[in-house]
């Protein structure tokens, strides 16, 4: 117990030193001013409508925050320990009763506190700016019929269990593994349907009328028509009570809110609700797929009563904070053994990889599919097919990329923008799940950093 207390006291001392180090650096003050400048850039945008203004503001807030944390993590944290070693300030410290790993962890702790406080500050400024803009629209002039201002609320979204039912089903065979079993409704018959089973619903969590939104990959009558007319049938599975809602002109890959909300009374006493989607006319097709941008399952979603927007923003900033912690952990850990410039280079590279994780993983998959295709062609006796690159080079590139992608967490699980831009509340499960995968990487990075500083000479 005494040892733990002693460790914590030393950890806190180094963390406090680190906080003083950062906050007294001119660079940090410049960085804060730069970030505030970025945050207010949206003010230069030409007169946008309220909803567009909200999207632009949210986008800018998260761009500015990400840039802030990247610079803090890479340029300030990445040079701190190497400079201590280079300037030999570490001698006086490491000769005291403190284990070298505690110095590293204390530095990490100090940076984490600064990052957290900075994000909290930026979050508060962002809220003030958003609420200010909301008020400005409310009391400003607006075009007749146009929305007066934007609502700042977040809707907890629930996805139902997808059931592809019965007749006239048509299985779409895609080229990619996840496309191999996409489901679509097409053809003359209008009986094929997608059923979404919502269960475990608690009526108290919903408004009297439950909002609902649909999103499908849709193709219309002609090649250039990307809309279909749909029917949404609401079913209480207990009483078999039904209500039909027409959903005309449902656009391909666009959120569609039916003209009518779902009465809460359709939720059964067991907390179940079914929604079925039919085509209204025997033309066009819809596909239940995974959204390529947000990676969310397409289909039908219902929304609980909205939660405070500020709460969603806090969750979003927490996601960004966890991303920042990972970058900090990697940079601080590698600075225990690498020089300042090399650490900077590594930090920038990792930030880059994390930022384009989706693009990189898609590219690796494409390369592997090309390799598979070439192999299949050769086995089938079609002879050797020429690829754009030699296959050995593709194999090496794929192996390296897979190694790099395996070493960093999938940051898409911690991207709050798909939620914020869709006015959707961030579910706690998504937050915890995303954090969990990143925290493992943070722990591993710090453990390796502690080991390397423990074993190195302080020459």
């Amino acid at each position, binding site marked *: 117990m005494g040892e733990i207390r002693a460790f914590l006291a030393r950890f806190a*001392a180094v963390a406090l030193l680190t906080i003083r180090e950062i906050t007294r650096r001119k660079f940090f003050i410049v960085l804060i001013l730069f970030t505030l400048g970025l945050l207010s850039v949206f003010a230069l945008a030409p007169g946008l409508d309220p909803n567009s203004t909200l999207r632009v503001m949210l986008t800018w807030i998260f761009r500015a925050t990400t840039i802030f944390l990247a610079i803090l993590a890479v340029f300030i944290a990445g040079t701190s320990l190497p400079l201590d070693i280079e*300037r030999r300030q570490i001698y*006086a410290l490491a*000769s005291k*009763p*403190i*284990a070298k790993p505690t110095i590293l962890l204390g530095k990490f702790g100090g940076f984490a506190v600064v990052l957290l406080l900075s994000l909290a500050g930026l979050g508060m400024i962002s809220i003030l700016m958003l609420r200010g803009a909301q008020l400005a629209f409310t009391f400003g002039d607006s075009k007749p019929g146009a929305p007066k201002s934007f609502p700042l609320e977040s809707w907890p979204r629930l996805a139902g269990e997808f059931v592809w039912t019965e007749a006239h089903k048509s299985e779409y065979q895609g080229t990619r593994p996840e496309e191999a079993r996409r489901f679509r409704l097409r053809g003359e018959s209008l009986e094929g349907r997608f059923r979404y089973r919502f269960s475990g619903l608690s009526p108290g969590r919903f408004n009297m009328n439950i909002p609902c939104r649909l999103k499908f990959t849709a193709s219309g009558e002609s090649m250039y028509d990307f809309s279909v007319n749909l029917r949404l049938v609401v079913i209480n599975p207990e009483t078999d009570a039904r209500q039909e809602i027409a959903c005309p002109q449902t656009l391909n890959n666009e959120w569609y809110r039916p003209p009518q909300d779902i009465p809460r009374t359709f939720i059964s006493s067991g907390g179940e609700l079914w929604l079925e989607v039919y085509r209204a006319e025997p033309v066009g097709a819809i596909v239940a797929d995974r959204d390529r941008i947000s990676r969310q399952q397409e289909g039908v979603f219902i929304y609980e009563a909205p939660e405070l927007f500020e709460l969603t923003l806090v969750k979003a900033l927490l996601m960004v904070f966890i991303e920042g912690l990972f970058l900090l952990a990697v940079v601080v850990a590698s600075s225990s053994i690498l020089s300042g410039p090399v650490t900077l280079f590594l930090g920038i590279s990792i930030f880059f990889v994390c930022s384009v994780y989706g693009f990189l993983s898609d590219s690796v998959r494409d390369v592997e599919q090309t390799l598979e295709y070439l192999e299949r062609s050769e086995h089938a006796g079609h002879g050797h097919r020429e690829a754009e690159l030699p296959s050995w080079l593709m194999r090496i590139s794929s192996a390296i990329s897979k190694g790099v992608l395996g070493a960093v967490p999938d940051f898409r699980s911690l991207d709050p923008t798909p939620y914020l831009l869709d006015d959707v509340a961030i579910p706690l499960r998504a937050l915890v799940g995303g954090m969990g995968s990143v925290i493992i990487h943070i722990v591993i990075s710090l453990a390796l950093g502690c080991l390397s500083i423990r074993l190195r*000479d302080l*020459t």
Partner: protein
Amino acid sequence: MADEVVIRTEALTKTYSSLFGRTKVHALENLSLEVRRGEVFGLIGPNGSGKTTTIKLLLGLLFPTSGRAEILGRPPTHVETKHKIGFLPEESYLYGFLNADETLDFFGRIFNIPAAERARRIESLLEKFEIAHARRRAIREYSKGMMRRVMFCQALINDPEVIILDEPTSGLDPISSRKIKDLILDLKKQGKTVLLSSHLLADMQDVCDRVAILYQGVLRKIGAVRDLLVNKDLVTLVLGDAGPEILGKVRELLSREGARVVSCDNTQENLESVFLKTIRESQALKVGDGGDPSVSR
């Protein structure tokens, strides 16, 4: 108790290798020595002789290539033993963004010294080293001498049993240098063990009980200063109030008994004592009103 060995090295060796081991530098080779409780032990040698490497090995900042070191009966990497050690590095490696108060508070926290006791020690050290007047100024604004004094404060914040001083008088003016030597002697009086390194031989001669001479990483000589300095072939006879007549008789007696008089001259003071005497006389006439007060006093 006085013979208790506080620092011990056995065949301690440190070799620095380049990344792929192509070039090797033997910084220290087979150093074996013992430092006993309460003594002032000096490591002397020219630059690159292995003094600082020895100190870093004793503090666990470096890992030995072979051999072993012990300090207070424990390996140098033992964290808790460091509670009893004070270390003054060769240069004043301080955090420029902190002030003296914050610096000492930080190091006090590392030693887990309770807040009230920490404040008392900081106060006492700042007073003792005459930097209390500048305690709230950022250290990057300090003169070299003031930084050195803050370094001394941090080395003593834990009231250590063993004090390791690497070039303690480096960069100091003669007055500050004298004060440091007095401090070392004071620490010895308090029963502390002091290990210091320097290439300023006069300083070492003034304060050390025993010294080890290192050259190119190898221990060349070790022993008590008095024993190392004694020349058994020559004898110094210091006479007071001896006029030419008495001197003549002494010479005659010595020559009759077969002794050879190598030199006979007035005793000379060393430059340090002349300098200090001059400054003290100047201060008696007029007290300085600017700069670092420790110099003017």
